[in-house]
Each structure stands twice: as structure tokens, then as C-alpha cells.
């Protein structure tokens, strides 16, 4: 069964909304913020990052409803409402709309805020609000509560494979008729501890530029954001594109089989450890990577999917800003012909992969 992408809502380093992402993809515009983390010894760590905003969420929800909701869940709420708005469903009957959310790390900042509460003040002062918002399914819960969605609700965490894995369950729900529609989301957030870890692992990089198709170089730059989509059973008239198939596996156990005559939207995001898997599989095939527009984080695979859907809808290939001259990809026509197929391919560091094929 094919899935139709009927609406998209996003917030990320490029801005808010599907038009903001499309504009960035068209113009090749990158939007990074200069961040500084001051360490205990007074040393300053300066780097670039793709941060997402939730300013404007009060267009959908009153501010008093948002007081105790953290950034992770606010990004999700924002993207969820934008996706519904994009699909014209804000006032629709959502009783048979399921929620599926994919996240690599969950609500990191709130997890550490909870630890702060007892490390600073003792266990008896542990914060119940931080604890209850620190569970990975907090975002899905807030989305269901604010939108009154009582149908099945699922959160999946599988690091880089979270999106492909969660999509598998979304498809099954639609195929078996459990729901008529799935509000499908991918979300991850930045926090200072994450920067500390990335600095430890990757040295003092993350200064740009991000060159995802320079597969032997470590050029990743941290990002965050939420990408939500409205998925339905495809009847041939998808607003954006149709998801034809999805396959998960491990390339080191059994090699991934890429479909013929398909342009690859690689989930490569400047991590050298994952780069080798792309080098083994996509060499000499038409390939683009869009991660520089939203940065590196596990749930960015959801943004790859959105970028692929936009390309199919617009019949336009949006090459990544650093693709030219990478030497990996043969030159490809920027116009996507009718019947074109794209495949979103994401590798994890151990060779685990998710391959999602789309067409119009």
C-alpha cells in the first residue's frame, strides 16, 4: 500500500513552515546561528548550529496552555499544527487520526533539567513536572492532548533509524484500517550537553561549511527541529508525493538493494563514521543531500523525507548547497521528469539503514 503525503509542517534552522524550507532549498540559503557555550573554567566554545524557533505557536494555542510545555514538545506542537493547516484539516474531524512520532534522543533538555532538580537540591526536591515531561513520548502526548486525538499513539526511538522504523508502523496502521490518517512527526532538540559530547567526539569542528557528500570528512553541524506530515492511504492524488515502500536492514549483514533509475536523497549529514556506508552504496548514482539546511540530528531523516516530497511536487531537483564538486554524484538534470522516483536513504554508524522510496 502506498502512503500519500497530504500536508507538511516544519520548524528548523531554515525557519518555520514548508514554504520557508522550500525557499531555502530553491535559493540555496543556509541559516546558521552563532552559539557560545561558556565552560566552568571560563573558556568559551563558539560554534554554528541550526536552531528551531517556536515563535508563532501562539497562533494555534493560547500562551497559558504552553507555560509548562518544553521546547521539544513545543516544536512538535508547532509542526503538527502547521501540517494540519497545510492539509486544510485544522477544523476537521480528527477522531480517526493516529499519532506516530520518531525521535533519536527524546527531550534532552528536560531530561537534564530533571537531573538538575535533584543534583542541586536533593532527591526530595526532584521536579515532578520535569520528570513527567522527560519521557520520550511527552511530545506525542502533548500533541494528542492539545488536538484531542484519541486514536492510537506511538513514539519510536532508534537513533538514525527512528524515522524509517516509525514509518513502518504508521503504514501498518493505515493498511489495517486502524486509522484513516496518521499525523507523523520527527523531532530532536539541541542542548549544551549535546554540544559538549559532540565536541568530545568530533573535536572543535562544527564551524562550517557542512559538506555531507564529502563522505570522508567530518563536517557535521548540530541541528534541531520538528517535521510533521499528514499521511493517508494513497488514492493517486497526493498533495505532495506518495511513499511507495520502505525497507529497514543492516548493510553489513546483507547489502542494501537500491532501486534502479532512482535519484537518491542521501541522509548523509557530515558524519565520517556513517559516510563510508554511503560511499559503498550510492557511488556513481545521482545523489543529493539536504542536511546543510537543517543540520545534523537523528530525526533529520524526517526533513530528508520532506525535502524529497517537495522535489517531487515541484518536479524540481533541489541540490544541496555543497553537492557541486563533491565528485560523488554524476551531474543530474535539475528538472524531475514525470514519473521520477526518489529514495530517501539513511545510514546509521553500524550499517543499519532505512530506505524510503517515493514517487509522484
Amino acid at each position: 500500500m502506498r502512503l500519500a503525503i497530504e500536508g507538511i509542517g516544519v520548524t528548523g534552522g531554515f525557519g518555520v513552515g514548508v514554504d520557508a524550507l522550500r525557499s531555502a532549498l530553491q535559493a540555496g540559503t543556509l541559516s546558521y546561528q552563532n552559539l557560545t557555550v561558556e565552560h566552568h573554567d571560563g573558556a568559551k566554545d563558539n560554534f554554528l548550529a541550526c536552531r528551531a524557533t517556536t515563535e508563532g505557536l501562539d497562533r494555534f494555542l493560547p500562551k497559558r496552555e504552553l507555560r509548562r510545555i518544553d521546547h521539544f514538545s513545543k516544536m512538535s506542537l508547532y509542526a503538527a499544527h502547521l501540517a494540519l493547516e497545510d492539509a486544510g484539516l485544522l477544523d476537521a474531524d480528527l477522531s480517526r487520526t493516529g499519532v506516530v512520532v520518531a525521535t533519536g534522543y527524546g527531550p534532552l533538555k528536560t531530561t537534564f533539567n530533571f537531573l538538575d532538580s535533584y543534583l542541586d537540591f536533593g532527591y526530595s526536591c526532584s521536579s515532578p513536572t520535569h520528570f513527567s515531561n522527560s519521557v520520550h513520548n511527552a511530545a506525542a502526548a502533548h500533541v494528542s492532548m492539545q488536538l484531542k486525538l484519541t486514536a492510537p499513539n506511538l513514539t519510536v526511538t532508534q537513533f538514525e533509524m527512528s524515522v524509517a522504523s516509525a514509518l513502518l508502523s504508521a503504514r501498518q496502521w493505515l493498511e489495517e484500517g486502524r486509522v484513516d490518517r496518521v499525523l507523523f512527526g520527527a523531532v530532536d532538540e539541541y542542548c549544551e550537553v549535546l554540544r559538549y559530547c559532540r565536541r568530545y567526539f568530533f573535536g572543535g569542528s562544527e564551524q562550517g561549511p557542512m559538506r555531507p557528500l564529502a563522505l570522508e570528512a567530518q563536517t557535521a553541524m548540530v541541528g534541531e527541529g520538528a517535521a510533521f506530515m499528514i499521511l493517508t492511504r494513497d488514492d493517486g492524488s497526493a498533495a505532495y508525493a506518495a511513499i511507495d515502500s520502505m525497507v529497514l536492514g543492516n548493510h553489513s549483514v546483507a547489502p542494501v538493494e537500491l532501486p534502479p533509475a532512482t535519484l537518491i536523497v542521501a541522509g548523509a549529514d557530515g558524519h565520517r563514521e556513517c559516510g563510508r556506508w554511503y560511499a559503498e552504496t550510492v557511488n556513481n548514482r545521482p545523489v543529493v543531500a539536504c542536511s546543510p539546511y537543517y543540520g545534523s540530528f537523528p530525526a533529520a531523516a524526517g526533513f530528508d523525507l520532506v525535502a524529497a516530497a517537495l522535489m517531487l511536487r515541484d518536479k524540481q531537483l533541489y541540490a544541496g548547497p555543497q553537492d557541486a564538486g563533491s565528485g560523488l554524484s554524476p551531474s543530474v538534470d535539475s528538472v524531475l521528469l514525470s514519473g521520477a522516483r526518489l529514495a530517501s536513504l539513511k545510514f546509521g554508524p553500524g550499517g543499519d539503514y532505512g530506505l524510503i522510496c517515493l514517487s509522484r
Partner: protein
Amino acid sequence: MTCPVPIAVTGLGCLSGAGMNLDENLATLFAGQRYPGPPIRFSTDHPVAYPVLELREEFKLPLDEEQLIYARTGQLALAAALEALTDAGYDEVSLRSKRVGVCIGTTVGCALNCDDFYRDYKDGNSPGMSIIERYLRSNPAAVIARQLKLNGPVQTVVNACSSGTDAIGLGAFWLRAGVCDLVISGGADELSRVTYAGFSSLMITDSSPCRPFDVNRKGLNLGEGAGIMILERGDTVEKKRIRGRVLGYGSACDAHHLTAPRPDGAGLQAALAEALQTAGVSPQQISFVNAHGTGTPDNDRIEGQVLQKVLPGVPFLSTKGYTGHTLGAAGAIEAVYTLACLERGEIPASIGFVEPDPAIPVAPVTANTSIAGTVALSQSLAFGGNNAVLILSAEGA
């Protein structure tokens, strides 16, 4: 809509504070024993030492040195998976001819609850990455897939306390869709200082051994463990290898509150209705219910009221008194117990229950009780308002 393809259960594995394998667990349950105590593996400055149900300290997981690099939840998941695969007659070599999926529920097993690392970071000590590296390689479903060199779909479900129930239901979907030939499904969670602090902050932990459905219940006891079911398509498995079947699964969301169940129980009722419908069975065919029964005032009251409404007169119990609340593992451990009890034709006493609560119109069994029939139900309620229900049958019971 009923399930179009029967899903066979061909292997079971379980470890918890009640025992290190399924046989030990059942012996503990039917002997009416439990072993709550203060936490052994961590300490806090709480003025009250809330009892927990930990795996015995002397227990050594049946894993080699390479497998012990994983965080505890990953180890628990792997140990239960190996028991279940052995029960199903598989080893690493025989699995390679199959497309094998892994679907595991957890909560602690995916959270960056590394408070030792974070304390060092806060203190400006530049902690190393060994704890983070362990976290990154310990996603429970990925641990099983990596250790067994599997090449199928891998999914870690994080629906809080219904995760284990959901993982089994989702694994059944994969089989029906033909995505894989066999699914290692279930849940795993370790006891953690972080969840210990968190649940005590919510004031829903009992300072005594927990008392599900009792009028004097004060809250839950935390536990740890793992439960695994090996699922295969029933139409491709020799009948003699089948221990039971997953007949139905249902889930629904309260959309009400982050931690409290919906007062009218509508979400749980919707999950029960879907499970009964997909199983194609009537409430009268249910032999017993393994309830969520945490021992918290709200959960047990709402759950009891829904049981009276949807499944009146059906015997039920909570096994949380034996295992503690094992969070993401709970639904899976209880599903394993449910099938094992169907095979035995009896259920254990709902330990901790003594005095009925006038606010709850039903009461759990107070002694080991014989049951008739081959179909039973296991249900979970969770943070985030998730409700999930499995309907299972035993083969030849």
C-alpha cells in the same frame, strides 16, 4: 476488523525480581512470594527507602564479556530474548535463514539518564565519553539485532508503561504485512535512580510492598526485568511448535493528562473494544485479565471501573506485587505470564490485595485460582495517556 493472519507465539522468555527465567517467575508467583527491598545498586538521600523489586544481586546474566558492554536494559532484553529463542528452538545460525524483526518496548533503556556523567559535567570535570558511548550502543532493540546479526526491521517503542504491550502488538502487524518471518518482541527496563527519584516526586510510590486494588494502596513499587515473545505467522509454523497465539491488539489515547488516567476510562475502553474486535472474541470468552494494577490510587480505581463495565465477572489479578512496576517491560512480562497461566489453567493470587475499596466495584483474586477456557487478556495504561490491550490464547490448554 479481525486479524486476517493468526500470529503464533513459539517462544517465551522472562526475568524479573520474581525470578531469572520464566520457570522461576512462575514458581514465585504460585508460591505467593515476593522480594521487595531497598535498592541495592544505587542510593539516594530520600528520607524513605521506597522498596523495589530488583533482580537478585548474585545474578549473572548468561552473556559473554562482549555482550556485557551494553547498558543493563540492553542486557536484560538480550537475556530474555535468548531464553525465548531457545524455547522456540532457534539459535543464531538457524535464525539467519529468516527475515527477523525486533520490536522492543522500554523507557529507561533509551533515556540519557546518566546522572553520574552529568554530575561530573556540572562540576566542570570534563567527563569522558564512556557512559555516552554505552548509551549510544544500548538501544534495546538494536542490541538484540546486532548481537544476533539480524537484517530485519528494528524498533524500540517508547510509549512509557504500555511500551511492552504495544511492541508485541506492533510486531504482530509486521508479520501480517509480510515484512518479516519472525519477530522478537517484548519489553525491557532496568531499575534506575532517575525513575526512582521521578516516581517519588510524583508521590505515587508506596513505602510498603505495593497493594494493587486494595483500599489502603499508596502507590507503586518500581521493578526491573524483561519479557520476550517470539512471534511467527501461524500459517507457516508446525502446530507442535506453537505455544499460543496473539489473537488481538488494541490501543487508544486518553488525550487527557500527561500522567493521570482519564477519569471516565474512555481510552482504556476504546483499546479493549479494538482488541476484542480484532481478536473476534466476546467478553464472555475471556478467562481472566492480567490488569495493569500498579497500586496507585488513580490507576486502580479507573481500571477497576472499566473492568466492571466491559468485562463484568471476569477474574482478574495484578502481578505488580511480585515484579514491581517494570515500566516499559511491564506489558511484555505480563503478556508472558498471561500465556503461561493459560497453559497451566490457573492464575496466582493478586498479592498485596486484602481489603476491597468501595470506590472500585470489582476485586482481584485472592488465591491461586483455576481458570477455564483458552483466551485471556493483558492490559497496560501509561504516561501520555496510552492504553494498550493484548488478547492471547494458549494452544492445547
